[in-house]
C-alpha cells in the first residue's frame, strides 16, 4: 500500500513511468469490469483506455485519504460506461450476446476439463449480464476483482450495508438464473 501511495505521488508529479506501474496493477480489473458491462471487446478496450487517460489527467485532484485509489478508478470507469450507454442506445440481441461471449471467452482451453469450465463460465457470464447494473457492479467488484466491502461501497457511492444487501440479492438472483438456465 505504501508503494501505491508512492506511485500515486510520483504520478501526481508527472512521472509517466510511475503511472504506468499503477496501470499495470489495475488494467486487468478495470478492463474486466468494463467488459462485463458493455459485453464487447473493442468497446471495452476503448472505455478502459479512456478510464486511464482520465485518471492520468486528473490524478492531481485525487486525495488518498478520501477513498482507495482502486475505487477512484472504478468510479471513473463506471461513469464512462453510464455515459457510453447514454450516448448509444444498445440494441443487443441474444445472438449478438452469444457471439460476444465467444469473443470475450476466447482464451485457449488447454484440456477437456478446462473446456467444461469454460461452458460454466459462459453460463455465469450470461447470468451476470441479466442482473441489475448495481448487482452486476457488486458481483464483479466483490467476487471477480476481489475488492473489499469498503472499496466497493466507495466505488458505487453506497454504504457498506447497502453493498452487503446488494451482494446477497445478486447472489440469490444469480443462483436462480443459473438454475433456470440449467433446467431450460
Amino acid at each position, binding site marked *: 500500500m505504501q508503494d501505491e501511495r508512492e506511485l500515486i505521488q510520483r*504520478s501526481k508529479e*508527472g*512521472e*509517466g*513511468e510511475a*503511472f*504506468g506501474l499503477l*496501470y*499495470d496493477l489495475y*488494467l*486487468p480489473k478495470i*478492463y*474486466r469490469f468494463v*467488459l462485463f458491462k458493455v459485453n464487447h471487446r473493442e468497446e471495452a*478496450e476503448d472505455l*478502459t*483506455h479512456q478510464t*486511464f*487517460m482520465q485518471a*492520468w*489527467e486528473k*490524478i*492531481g485532484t485525487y486525495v488518498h485519504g478520501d477513498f482507495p485509489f482502486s475505487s477512484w478508478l472504478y468510479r471513473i470507469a463506471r461513469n464512462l460506461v453510464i455515459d457510453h450507454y447514454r450516448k448509444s442506445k444498445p440494441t443487443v440481441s441474444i445472438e449478438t450476446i452469444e457471439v460476444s461471449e465467444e469473443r*470475450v*471467452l476466447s*482464451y485457449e482451453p488447454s484440456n477437456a476439463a478446462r473446456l467444461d*469450465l469454460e461452458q*460454466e*463460465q459462459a*453460463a*455465469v*457470464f450470461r447470468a*451476470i449480464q441479466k442482473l441489475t447494473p448495481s448487482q452486476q457492479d457488486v*458481483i464483479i467488484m466483490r*467476487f*471477480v*476483482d*476481489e475488492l473489499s466491502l469498503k472499496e466497493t461501497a466507495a466505488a458505487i457511492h453506497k454504504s457498506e450495508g447497502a453493498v452487503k444487501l446488494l451482494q446477497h440479492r445478486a*447472489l440469490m438472483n*444469480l*443462483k436462480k438464473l*443459473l438454475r433456470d438456465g440449467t433446467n431450460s
Partner: protein
Amino acid sequence: MEPILKTIRELRAIQPSDEFRTRTRLLFTTSSRMGIFTYPRLSFLQTFHVAAALTATALLVTAVFGGSHYLKQAFIPKTFVGLNNSELLTEANLLQNDIDINLQEADYYTKDSRRTVAAALQEAFVTSPGHLNASVIEREMRAFTIEDPTNEEINRLLEQATL
C-alpha cells in the same frame, strides 16, 4: 453457492490483449503529465519575455487605434459646414434665386419667340411675298400655258410633224 462463487472467480482469467496493454501503456510512459495536461511552469526569463511580448502587443494596438483616431480628428473637422442649419438655408435660398432667375429668362424668351413668329406670319398673310417678282412669274406662266395660241414654237413643231 460455493460452486457459483468459484466459477465467478474463474472469470478472472479474462485479460486484455497484450497489444492493447502495450499500446495504451506507451501513452503514459513516453510522456510527462506536465507536458501533456498542465501548463508549463515559466522561468523568470520566460515570464519576462511573455510580459514584454504582451506589452509590445498592447502598444501596437494602442498605436493602431490611437493613430486612426488622431487621423480622423486631423482630417475631418469636428462640425461639418454642411451640417449647419443656417448655412444650409442660405445655400438653399441662393439656389432658389438662381433657379427663379433662369425660369424668368426662359419665360421671357418663350414669349418673345412667340411674338416674333406671330409677327412674321401676320406679315406673310397681309403682304404678298416681297421676294417674288410678279412679272417674272407671269412670263413663266404664259410660256408654260399649253392653250396659249401665241406659242409659236409649238405651232412650228406641229407643222413639221404633220408635213
